[in-house]
């Protein structure tokens, strides 16, 4: 049952990811991205990562993408307006995309042997649960966690300062 469901969701995920770049309408592209992020959360569920899946939906599919759509609707971006017209931009995008693809292929070929059986080992009890994740986050990774939150706070204050200045 598990592998079949995984295949179904993986195919759906890849096709909606393709939809992001294939659709000509910006709104439809953004909506494909919402579906992609939601399906990614489903894939996280297959990995026993319930908390990560929920946060993925709350933060990315539910909050960030709403702001994307909000901006697209407010600016009323039209379909016929091509964003990437210059050849240099297209070439740059193609090179970066190719590099990512190569990296992914390399990982696919080498990972199982390099991981030393880490991929096949059984997950410990309570793996991916909120309690286990919080325990690790607030003991072993406490400093990075707190530094990240300070970084986000700085970004929020920066955004407010910039917005206020343009109002005055």
């Amino acid at each position, binding site marked *: 049952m598990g592998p079949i469901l995984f295949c179904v969701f993986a195919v759906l995920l890849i096709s909606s990811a393709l939809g992001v770049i294939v659709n000509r309408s910006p709104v439809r592209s953004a*909506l494909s991205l919402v579906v992609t992020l939601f399906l990614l959360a489903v894939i996280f569920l297959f990995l026993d990562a319930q908390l990560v899946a*929920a946060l993925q939906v709350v933060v990315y599919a539910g909050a960030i993408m*709403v702001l994307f759509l*909000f901006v697209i609707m407010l600016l009323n971006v039209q379909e016929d307006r091509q964003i990437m017209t210059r050849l240099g931009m297209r070439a740059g995008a193609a090179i970066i995309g190719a590099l990512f693809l190569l990296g992914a292929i390399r990982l696919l070929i080498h990972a199982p042997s390099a991981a030393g059986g880490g991929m096949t080992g059984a997950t410990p009890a309570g793996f991916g649960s909120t309690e286990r994740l919080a325990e690790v986050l607030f003991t072993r990774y406490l400093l990075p966690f707190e530094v990240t939150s300070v970084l986000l706070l700085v970004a929020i204050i920066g955004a407010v300062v910039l917005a206020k200045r343009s109002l005055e």
Partner: protein
Amino acid sequence: MQSRSEQHHGERDTEQTLGASPAVKRRVVRMWTEAGIAAIKALPVILMVFSLAGILGWVERKGSALIQDRIGANRASIFGFAGAGLVNTLFADPLKFLTKEDIIPLRADRLLHTLAPCVSLFPVLVTFAVIPFGDVLQVGGRTINLQVAPLGIGVLYVLAMASLAVYGVVLGGWASNDRFSLMGSIRGSAQMVSYEIGMGLSLVSMVMTYGSLDLQEMVRAQGALIGGWIPAWGILYQPVAFLLFLCAGIAESKRVPFDLPEAESELVSGYFTEYSGIKHLMFFMTDFVEVTVVAALVTTIFFGGWQLPYLGRDGFHFPWGASLMLPQVIVAVLQVLTFMAKVFFFCCFQILIRWSLPRFRYDQVMRLGWKGLLPIALLNVLATAVIVLAFQG
């Protein structure tokens, strides 16, 4: 010795090749039984939600008439029974919606226009999966948890679905290719994103109070008694969080006083102006299902869910010493009825609010969300953290 084990091994191989290994068979049977039980639990929940939405339609009509000193829906009476208006909203109205013409405006996005009502109804309906409607039911040696999906991350799941609910509004407004609709959906998305934060933070303080994300655990924790006779319901510990949650919940369901996305006097009907027939019905249903969701969550988190005071798993245990033993099935039925009564009470309470308050202005809605709810919710989280730590240490 060796030959016997080989022989045994051979037997198992043939069994597996025939596809009839008893262990596998048992696992498949168990899987289907679990799936069947889940389906049987989900069906009445869905039916209850849909019929409650219909009943609320009637309660709202009659209730608003009562509040405004009118007679209200009085055209339907079967054999002199005036309550037949209920039959009207439950059967005649949906039938009428179903048979109406479905109009898609010219130059609208046909696919997204059709998808929007479904996207709006889906997240609200699936929220009910994690809401416990009873403790456990023991049938034939099997203990059934009266909750469709016992998720460890219950509260986060609720928040995730609440955050997806905004897409129905956004899509409906944008796909209609209409200025009123677009205005409505822009207002709606801004409002829902703003109030999600207050709602999330009020739930954070509740999670800290109960020490769990699981809604069923939360309800069980509320079964305790303070000083031996006061039920330990969430509202007694967190009255501020209750007010914040109720306020944010009503704002999320986009009803008066927060109905700016559909403000009739300015935007015709807001984001669903261009909808007719069954699609309009689906947006209409979303409204009432959202009311039910908010009522169910308020009940579950702040008012003891299915807990009937002094009712334990084996019967009543009153604080004055008397006790009344009851069979397990009756206890379960009493719990489900208690839950439904509480939910119905909070639905009616929301309808009362809807017909008592005038609509806020847009800037007032935003100010209340960001400068009112958000700071109070943050302070409440801080105070909760201090108190929880003080009691632990």
